[in-house]
């Protein structure tokens, strides 16, 4: 098992550009999550999904969109990138609600 994989590892965007962060898990987990980590801080939840076709907002969803067309994939879309979205983005998954979450390696995004 590769676990949770994310692409790209690094990206620099100009203000106003858009991009999609990819996340894939091969553990057949129903629950998937997107977090952001700002410098010196813990992680905050952006969006989550409890299964294919079902997504919901977390603590900090503004400026982002998600979709979940398959169990494996949970892409995060940034529209009109802003400097405030400079952060490290982590994707995670878990088999059942309340069980431990497994994290991907992260995507470091800089918006200038």
């Amino acid at each position, binding site marked *: 098992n590769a676990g949770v994989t994310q692409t790209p590892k690094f990206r620099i965007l100009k203000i106003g550009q858009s991009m999609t962060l990819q996340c894939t898990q091969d553990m057949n987990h129903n629950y998937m999550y997107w977090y952001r980590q700002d410098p010196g801080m*813990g992680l905050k939840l952006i969006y989550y999904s409890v299964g294919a076709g079902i997504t919901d907002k977390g603590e900090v969803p503004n400026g982002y969109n998600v979709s979940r067309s398959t169990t494996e994939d949970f892409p995060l879309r940034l529209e009109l990138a802003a400097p405030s979205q400079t952060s490290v983005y982590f994707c995670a998954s878990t088999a059942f609600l309340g069980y431990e979450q497994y994290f991907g390696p992260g995507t470091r995004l800089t918006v200038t």
Partner: protein
Amino acid sequence: GIQVEQSPPDLILQEGANSTLRCNFSDSVNNLQWFHQNPWGQLINLFYIPSGTKQNGRLSATTVATERYSLLYISSSQTTDSGVYFCAVRGANNLFFGTGTRLTVIP
């Protein structure tokens, strides 16, 4: 959301020393996880410990859910233990993270 406080915020240890990291949380929780974020940014699961005590090599953790705290013990610290240690507790739908304890182990 649930408030999660970790202490101390920073810790510097000589290699071989022991340490205790603390995590306090503001509400009843269904699970608690400890993570180590290494200097390359990777998040590594250490413990899934909603209650009780677990041990894994030089690391152990104890959660007392009724008193809303958890402790992470690191014994005989090594330079590879350096990084940031996070605890995270689960609310209704997601994990709430503390701001971490930054550990530096010097040889």
